[in-house]
């Protein structure tokens, strides 16, 4: 719908974007982007595709460094590793890399294509990520909000530093498909728009395995988000900041429902995670449970149908095994343990759980109300809660108050980021064949 609006009044794209954005904040699961190609001149021989979405992206840069130095209300100091002090130059470089699709084997996938800024820095439309050429990824994309505070990265907690996390998606056959670190580094080295940027950010060091990770990590650290209605109520002492229902939800969260045993709230700040690994039964159910006879499939917003599982299986890949932490430690006692995610901005980061199997917060609360999915290794803190329907609604209301006040700012800043390999008005952008420097040699004429 916005596409046609844009064609008529191109100068008003920002208005369209803002309107959509306002709608997004009201209903967290709406899709912001207006997908599709600009079809002007479609019938002419020199027609070139251009993404409408990119044309719409006219955000404004934010003071990301300031946000790291002074995190919003409710968050502690951002931990910065000694060997990667943060700077505006690093942040800018990391942001450029984050949106650069040339970091994938065939120049189609950037970090932002799974960690979509306007979709909570995750993907609201699919349970588990989809990578290069449509390949299946096993797990749900975790949000990048507040990732600076996490001590365990990935759902199975196998990585501990942001600087090293990048190599998993970069080198994963299913995600960005690069065959080696050298392929990525040589490609960046050959790109004219990166010339000098690493040297400027890292005191003369060019692009390398470490500096690439340090740049991206520096940008990711700036995605801190708090000063939510909850924070203003709980830490800011503003009594009217959240509803009475949400207050009741908070009481349950820290009381009878026992959520804060893992989703921790501190006296001066709250990460809503204990940075530990737990078995709630989601992974066990996925591995052990026979599927129900039908599954609900959402065909369009608000339109769902029940499809027999046999039909879904006949056109889908077989489910991939997923044993969680035990794949890392090789210990059977660690089976189906996944990390406690932060609940900040949880209203924006549907679907939920490591496999995206729960579409709404209501489903999540219901899951825990039932006592998770029982198995021999289930965390001792999980048990049936016997909450009433209105108590469950209170919990959901509470969770909805955890959305930070700077979400629009961060998304706007993301929209202002340069998108690698695209330049507005450049007719060649879709067809520039960017080799990774490892292909043919001109001298092959002998």
């Amino acid at each position, binding site marked *: 719908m916005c596409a046609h609006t844009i064609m008529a009044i191109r100068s008003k794209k920002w208005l369209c974007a803002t309107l959509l954005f306002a709608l997004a904040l009201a209903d967290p699961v709406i899709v912001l982007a207006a997908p599709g190609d600009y079809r002007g001149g479609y019938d002419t021989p020199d027609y070139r595709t251009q993404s409408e979405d990119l044309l719409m992206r006219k955000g404004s840069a934010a003071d990301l460094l300031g946000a790291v130095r002074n995190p919003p209300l409710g968050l502690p100091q951002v931990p910065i590793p000694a060997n990667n002090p943060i700077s505006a130059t690093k942040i800018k470089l990391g942001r450029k890399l984050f949106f650069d699709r040339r970091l994938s084997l065939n120049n189609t996938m950037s970090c932002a294509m799974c960690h979509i800024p306007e979709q909570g820095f995750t993907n609201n439309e699919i349970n588990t990520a989809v990578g290069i050429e449509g390949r299946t990824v096993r797990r749900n994309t975790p949000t990048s909000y507040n990732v600076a505070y996490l001590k365990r990265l990935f759902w199975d907690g*196998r990585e501990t530093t942001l600087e090293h996390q990048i*190599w998993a998606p970069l080198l994963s056959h299913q995600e960005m498909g690069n*065959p*080696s670190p*050298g392929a990525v580094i040589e490609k960046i080295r050959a790109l004219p728009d990166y010339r000098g940027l690493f040297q400027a950010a890292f005191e003369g060091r060019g692009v*390398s395995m470490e500096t690439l990770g340090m740049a991206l990590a520096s940008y990711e650290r700036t995605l801190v988000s708090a000063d939510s209605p909850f924070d203003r109520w709980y830490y800011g002492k503003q009594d009217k900041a959240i509803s009475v229902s949400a207050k009741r939800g908070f009481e349950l969260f820290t009381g009878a429902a026992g959520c804060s045993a893992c989703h921790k709230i501190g006296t001066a700040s709250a990460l809503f995670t*204990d940075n530990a690994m737990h078995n709630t039964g989601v992974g066990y159910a996925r591995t052990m449970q026979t599927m129900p006879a039908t599954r609900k499939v959402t065909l369009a917003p608000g339109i769902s149908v029940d499809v027999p599982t046999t039909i879904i299986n006949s056109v889908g890949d077989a489910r991939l095994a997923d044993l969680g932490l035990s794949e890392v430690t090789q210990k059977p006692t660690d089976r189906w343990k996944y990390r406690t995610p932060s609940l900040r901005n949880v209203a924006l980061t549907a679907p939920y759980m490591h496999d995206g199997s729960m579409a709404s917060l209501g489903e999540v609360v219901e899951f825990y109300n039932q006592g998770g999915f029982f198995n021999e290794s289930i965390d001792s803190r999980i048990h049936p809660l016997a909450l009433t329907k209105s108590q469950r609604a209170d919990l959901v209301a509470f969770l909805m108050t955890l959305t930070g006040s700077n979400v629009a700012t961060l998304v706007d800043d993301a929209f202002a980021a340069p998108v690698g390999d695209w330049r507005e008005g450049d007719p060649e952008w879709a067809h520039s064949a960017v080799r990774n420097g*490892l292909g043919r*040699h001109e001298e092959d004429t*002998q």
Partner: protein
Amino acid sequence: MKASIAMAGGLFSLLLAATGLAYAGGDNATPALAPGYGALGFVPPAVGSYELPALKMAPNGNVLDESGKQVSLYQVFGDKIVVFSFIYSTCGDVNGCPLATFVLNRLKKRMDADPELGANVRLVTISFDPEHDTPAVMRLYAANFKDGAGQWRFLTTASQQQLRPILDSYGQRIQREVDASGQATNTFSHVLRVFLIDRQRQIRNIYAVSFLHPDLVVNDIKTILRAPPIIARSSSKVATSAATKYSPAKLLARLQTPPLGLPPMPVPADNALSPIKVALGRKLFFDRRLSLNQTVSCAMCHIPQQGFTNNELATSVGIEGRTVRRNAPTLYNVGYKQRLFHDGRETALRRQIWGPLLNHNEMGNVAVGQIIGKIRSLQDYSNQFDQAFPTRGLDMETLGMAIASYERTLVSGNSPFDRWYYGGEKGAVSQSAKRGFGLFSGKAGCSACHSVGKRHALFTDQRLHNTGIGYARSMAIEPPTRKVEVAPGVVLDVATSIMRSVSGQAPADLGLYEVTQDPADRWKYTTPTLRNIALTAPYMHDGSLPTLRDVIEFYNRGGVANEELDTRIHPLHLRQQEIDDLVAFLSTLTGDDVGALVGDASSAPIGDPGGAATDGGVPQVTRAE
């Protein structure tokens, strides 16, 4: 007296066993007798025709001898070759302690009859039931076997406390059985093990029930007596038996003036070589803890004794036996390579390591932090990275830089070819090899890609080419039979259809295309160096050509035609003599100090000293609560 009744029981089982009768015990079924009781069903290998490598140091321990005196195991072993068994006297399992005692009895008789055995061997039996088997009990045993030249000592321990460290260090797990009402019985369950220990206190063999037989033990003893003393296994420095050993400093010195035929080693400006880095890189190279489950090190695919590759497999086998797609490239002269891996996807040695480290089928690590965290937690690496890389310590790159530093020292040159071609030594190679070189750089056209320069030769143009090997594999173009070496020197022709019927599907492999996504790059692979080629069979990126002759015949046929075939490849019309000459030439490319490099590798410390357990490399995180 309790001891004598029990002793009678023990002797009774011994007698039964000695007469070869099966002991029914409490079961209805009579157990089959272990092979040690009967005649050996085969001819053992000739004495001295095999090796018994040292398995580990035989641990010492405090024991009581037959007179009740406190002695150490080593004192009892003395300067003899020892056959060491663990028993308990009330054992009723005919295939348990009675078997060990029966076999040792037969050994004693052989020792009594054979002066060489009598003079050099000592039998030692120790009880793991100190409560029951006091020195007095063991004296009763000893009294039965005191005659004759063969010495047989019977030991026990003063207490469980004294016994336990001995059991643990010899890997003996003992458990006293309980009956239905939970009362302890006089029966133990344990796994029978008899140890053969040489004069240097090295365990050379460990016998189990299925092959404990006096003939085999005597065969092993005589093999030890024939062979020179072997290298003791310990983490301290040891001397190699023959070749000159290189230390990290010596390895580096070789690079100052590279061997004849090789150019100066290119070293990145930010990773200058140093002895500390080389030593650290070498330690890492042999460290099996760098894999997910502590089983696979770099050296397990790049085996020093097998040309720093694997001569026994066409394609590598990784963690838990997983299939790897391609052949392990040799590491000789890898410091000169500009394109790493067969598909040339990596350009820096320091980055190359992350391919095998993170590959599910190779070393199986699941995250960069897992390896870095594990190394950080290992005591024997503490502050080594800080010393080698003072401003950086351990990170992704310095890990690669250390290993690369060691790999750069694996230069090998001054081969017979080098001495002839660059050194002017007319007699360094045979006439056949000289003719072969003439073909190599002439009619056969090999040097178009396997380049030879005026002052040095890397035998590679550092490029990637399609010779058709990859095409043939993708299109399943196979000969009707394939040669399979079932034992050293024994080669059979097996129908390819039979092999396919028991094999997994060969994974797709499109070479450089997988890196560039350019169809013109399909089935292009890197030109390998030919230095030390005689040591690095089998050949090609998939190890599909077992011998050099097979390789030359492949090129003689013009490779395998396909639309991307390199224009330099075409049928060569070589005669048999010319093929022989080419093979002779290739065999002259072996560097002169391979033995020393392998010897150095053999003396490198092997990770996990003392079998220390690691925790599987879980990232260490302080808990929030």
